[in-house]
């Protein structure tokens, strides 16, 4: 496995555009969070806004940038025919995929940590100016605060799970553009489709099982009892999606001709 990891890391470094990927993830995530934080005010105590979730709102856009790394990491190999060379060098296909997943997820964890920490810091600086003050029941965002730490760490894990999901879909679909469409569709569309029904039970069910809305409940720090799914179970739903995608992709990779 060590050799495979080393090989995959070398390959990932050679991916075109990798140099700007991590900065792009950080900038997109932080800027979205800043825009959201700057636009919201908390005019009175009990305004109901979730400060941690607000400052981490950039994750909702950042996840698309994660797909931008994780999908081509595998579909690029199919596009160039490199996959045959890779599988010739690493005939244990599941090990090959695991190594690739480890490298992609590792990189996402690293860049995601920077993005999330910067977002929390930005929220800490911006939000008190918008009425998120002690008088209105908000203390400055701090990772020493349990729920905030959970929201921040969970957001990093969320991005990593999105990377795993992207990789799984990529290996199953093999065509990069189509895989990106499926991944982003999975992440963004359930929220919209939910709006199409006015049956609250259905809405709740859709929000419980869709990867993004369930996974993002990890960011909630207020009103948790009213959420369709709790923070950790929600992240678990996304983990199940990611695991299923990777497993399905891995089985297809093993059975199919390269």
């Amino acid at each position, binding site marked *: 496995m060590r*050799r495979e990891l*080393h090989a995959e890391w*070398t390959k990932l470094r*050679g991916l075109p555009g990798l140099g700007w990927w991590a900065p792009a993830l950080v900038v997109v995530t932080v800027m979205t969070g800043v825009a959201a934080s700057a636009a919201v005010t908390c005019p009175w105590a009990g305004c109901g806004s979730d400060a941690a979730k607000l400052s981490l709102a950039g994750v909702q856009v950042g996840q698309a940038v994660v797909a931008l790394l994780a999908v081509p990491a595998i579909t690029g190999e199919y596009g160039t025919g490199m996959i045959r060379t890779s599988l010739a060098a690493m005939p244990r296909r599941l090990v090959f995929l695991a190594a690739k997943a480890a490298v992609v997820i590792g990189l996402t964890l690293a860049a995601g940590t920077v993005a999330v920490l910067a977002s929390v810091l930005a929220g800490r600086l911006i939000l008190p100016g918008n009425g998120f003050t002690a008088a209105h029941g908000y203390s400055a965002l701090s990772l020493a605060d349990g729920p905030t730490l959970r929201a921040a760490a969970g957001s990093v894990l969320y991005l990593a799970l999105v990377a795993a999901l992207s990789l799984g879909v990529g290996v199953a679909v093999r065509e990069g553009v189509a895989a990106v469409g499926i991944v982003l569709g999975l992440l963004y569309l359930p929220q919209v489709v939910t709006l199409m029904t006015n049956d609250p039970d259905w809405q709740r069910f859709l929000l419980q099982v869709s990867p993004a809305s369930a996974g993002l409940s990890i960011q909630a720090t207020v009103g948790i009892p009213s959420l369709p799914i709790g923070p950790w179970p929600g992240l678990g739903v996304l983990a199940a999606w990611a695991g299923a995608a990777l497993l399905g992709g891995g089985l297809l990779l093993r059975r199919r001709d390269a």
Partner: protein
Amino acid sequence: MEATIDVIGVRKRFGRTMALDGMTFAVRPGRVTGFVGPNGAGKSTTMRVVLGLDTADEGSALVGGRPYASLRRPLSHVGALLDAAALQPSRTARDHLLWLAHSQGLTGRRADEVMEQVGLGSVARRRAGGFSLGMRQRLGIAAALIGDPPVLMLDEPFNGLDPEGIVWIRGFLRSLAAEGRAVLVSSHLMSELQDTAGHLVVVGRGRVVADAGVAELIAAASRDRVTLRTTARPEAMTVLAGTGATVAAVDRDTLTVSGLAAGRIVELLNGHAVPFSEVAAHRATLEEAYMELTRDAVEFRAAMTPLEPGTDREGAR
């Protein structure tokens, strides 16, 4: 329109590399012009400049006296095969030709005709993605012929062909030229053009090294060289080298001498009583002529062969 290609003083720089450095030559109708040179000599770039895909920094490249971009229905003026792998794999061979035909205002009939012409009629409805390299080359040639153009440019059409395919393409190119077309065929192996090209443009380091008929080139390469057969090789070498001639040993009893006429050699050997069995004017092969011409122009020595894109970098570990 005249069936010609004129490349006049074209320069093209990619970053710090001077890819084309005053490339100048002309391609005339009625013959196959071989465009040869080592890898990286600028053959493909020249073709791309002629076809308007790359823009020249200096100089001009004209087809029938006009720049490619100004041609209306360009495929009826020039047909080109650049990269046989440039196909949408899920499209059938016929459909690939069909859209090209439509782009020139032609119908599916023309697509069928060229498929038959290159011998792909039986696989017309198969996905091009499943084609072998040889079949793709044929499909690429069919695409070049779609507008029935008087000028053809083929970049390395022999690549990936089996011996039978090479024989076929040689005959095919000759017959296209015999119809009065100008045919420019690039290759990095002179042997592939041996019996095909009547005229050669030899390039190296972005410049034309030689532009001549095949017979002339061979004659030039053979000039002043004499093959000497002798049982007393060391003595012969001493005698001849003493006069300032260049002597090279070919095998145990054969020498090649340059810088001395055959008559003078006979005179010298007789004078020093060196025995010999044969003195004959040397007739160079096309390959030798080529090697001689491009010796200084080879871009990459074996020791610094670069990795091809897509090769396995970690495989070396």
